[in-house]
């Protein structure tokens, strides 16, 4: 056993010194390799982090939302539906929600306007999100005017800003009184945007959803789990798309690695020839090449992941965010919570190190079978 370890140690020793001797070739390989790992890792860390953020936010979302459909399109829901839903056994509460979008031509952005159910706001006052405060450069005490549905201007005094902690969801949010909301949009008093339902036993969610759609056939109940599932698969799909696109780059990298590994210089060939002449076996030379590959892979993989970590979690993935986050004018300003799990590292390993290793098997073997006699003669 000790002799085996000693042998491996000597081979590793030789490998490292030969890697250092050929600095130029190996550094170019290292840079390209690191770049490939970096791009893939950034895409994956970012989508995974977005999934986590989304699921954390959705934890606070209502268990079930009931919307009304008219001609297959979403429509305001009549308030008398509330009584019918409350009458279903197992429903703890059903409440109407008032929310909508307001397009502000001054900044070209959509705001989300909402009348909160459990927060009282004084008449003629509003509370705004950080994003709006930033783009409109307004603060507490300032007046914000809106064009109402009838073309008249309605003005509201800003009563405060929403806390920064909730910025991911509240960057574009405006909280307003119910009366102000109905007045601004000309929304009839008999209707609401949608209804949120809470249920005593979560296992009964599906049954209650079915009862609602039976009793009120023109509605569609949406369960929180379904939203989580949809977000998950949308982010997975985006991440997968990016990876499929990067696959082309990966292919180029594999060809590059193949070239690098098979383009042996005359000097390298002579070196291997001498090693074999002094008693090294073919398998020992293959071992050297394997160690070489592992050392390069280890450093490139580790360095690529570190770079991607910095890129995603410290600079909020400034290179990829526009493509992966989705489309919006008012981006929330937030820093993603750092999070990596072994699964992601495993996937990255399979996407980068494995193709690289496979590409170098045949070239290493070719290098290892050189005939010492013919190489040293030439």
């Amino acid at each position, binding site marked *: 056993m000790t002799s085996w370890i000693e042998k491996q140690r000597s081979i590793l020793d030789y490998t490292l010194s030969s890697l250092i001797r050929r600095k130029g070739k190996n550094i170019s390989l290292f840079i390209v390799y690191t770049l490939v790992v970096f791009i893939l890792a950034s*895409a*994956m860390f970012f*989508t995974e982090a977005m999934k986590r953020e989304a699921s954390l936010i959705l934890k606070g979302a209502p268990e*079930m939302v009931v919307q009304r459909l008219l001609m*297959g399109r979403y429509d305001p829901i009549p308030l008398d539906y509330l009584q019918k839903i409350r009458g279903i056994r197992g429903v703890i509460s059903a409440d109407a929600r008032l929310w909508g979008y307001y397009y502000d031509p001054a900044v070209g952005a959509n705001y989300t306007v909402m009348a909160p159910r459990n927060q009282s706001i004084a008449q003629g006052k509003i509370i705004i999100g950080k994003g709006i405060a930033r783009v409109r450069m307004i603060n507490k005490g300032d007046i914000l005017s809106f064009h109402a549905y009838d073309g008249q201007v309605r003005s509201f005094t800003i009563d405060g800003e929403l806390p920064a902690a909730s910025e991911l969801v509240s960057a574009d949010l405006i909280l307003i009184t119910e009366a102000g909301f109905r007045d601004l949009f000309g929304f009839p008093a008999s209707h609401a945007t949608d209804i949120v339902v809470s249920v005593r036993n979560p296992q009964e*969610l*599906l*049954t209650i*959803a*079915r009862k609602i*759609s039976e009793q009120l056939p023109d509605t*569609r*109940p*949406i*369960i929180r*789990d*379904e*939203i*989580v*599932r*949809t977000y*998950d*698969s949308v982010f*997975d*799909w985006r*991440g*997968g*798309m990016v*990876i*499929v696109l990067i*696959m082309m780059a990966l292919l180029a990298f594999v060809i590059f690695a193949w070239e690098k590994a098979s383009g042996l210089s005359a000097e390298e060939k002579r070196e291997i020839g001498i090693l074999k002449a002094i008693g090294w076996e*073919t*398998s020992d030379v*293959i071992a050297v090449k*394997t160690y070489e590959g592992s050392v390069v892979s280890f450093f490139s993989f580790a360095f690529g992941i570190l770079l991607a970590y910095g890129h995603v979690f410290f600079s909020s993935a400034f290179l990829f965010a526009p493509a992966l986050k989705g489309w919006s004018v008012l981006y929330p300003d937030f820093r993603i919570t750092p999070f990596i799990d072994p*699964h992601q590292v*495993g*996937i990255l*390993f*399979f*996407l980068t190190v*494995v*193709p690289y*290793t*496979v590409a170098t*098997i*045949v070239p*290493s*073997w070719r290098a*290892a*079978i050189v005939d010492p006699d013919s190489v040293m003669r030439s």
Partner: protein
Amino acid sequence: MILHPAIVALVLVSFLIGGMMIYSAFFGVRIIGRWDIKSGSEEQLALERKTYLISTILSYVFVFQIGSLFLYVYTADSLHNLFVGAMCAAGSLYVDPYGYPTFILKILNCILAGLWLIVNYVDNRAYDYPLIRKKYVMLLILTPFFITEGISQWLYFAQMRADVITSCCGSLFSSERSGVGSEIAGLPVKAAMAGFYLSLVLTFATGLVFLIKEKWGRLFSFASGLLFLMSCVALVSFISLYFYELPTHHCPFCVLQREYGYIGYLLYAALLTGAVSGLGVGVLVTIRGGASLSGTLPLVQRRLAMICFLAYAMFAGISIYRMVSTDFTLGLF
């Protein structure tokens, strides 16, 4: 098809492994047909050099195969929230009929590749390659298994559909579908326990006879294979219950999670090592080898038997320790 990064990685690796196996099998056919150790011809020299390439390739295949087995389980687990009713990997694998066959093929291929490497290792100890033809016939038998695994895995992922909201209706789809089964039913606990402990005793008894008297090698090997199967059954029907401390949760995958300290990796690694080394003894006894191996073969067999002992002892030790140390009880004793 769900375009999850892990699925892309698994499919990519299965393509690479399949390609490497076909490439090796192609040369395997040539070696079986043309190998002549006494000849000094150009072709024989080329074939001898090729054997180095094939053993290198197969070593990598073995490593990647083990990795892909664990990645597969992990991926199935992380996909569970896309399907109604699935609680963990056990549920996601039920989503379509190819989930479990792929999983079983992956385990089988790990063991087969491990056995091939053992034979290869022994063959390389001798100067005249006594096992070369048998080794490459074995390789030809292995290749279809790997290709089947790749196809089955592809079908599994290709047929996957996430239960997401469509524009016309929300939960209607969820309520119409009955949902996939999220629990695996285990064998009755007493029968599984009896089978597990009996095969454990059988393996250790025949193993001792083999180590001391160098006979019953095949019986020992058979017992260790049986123990592998019984351990899998035991894991599902009672060992997992002690880890989860829950009398209804028979999942063999959740032990791989962080909540249980990743202890599952140790358990499965021990099981796979035990199976490969135990079955390896039987394979070596069966194919024997010429005079040039008479010195090394018994040595390798003894070592394999020791490794098999250690691995199964570790598996049984961890499981039994957990059963004894936890407050949870199945109320059998």
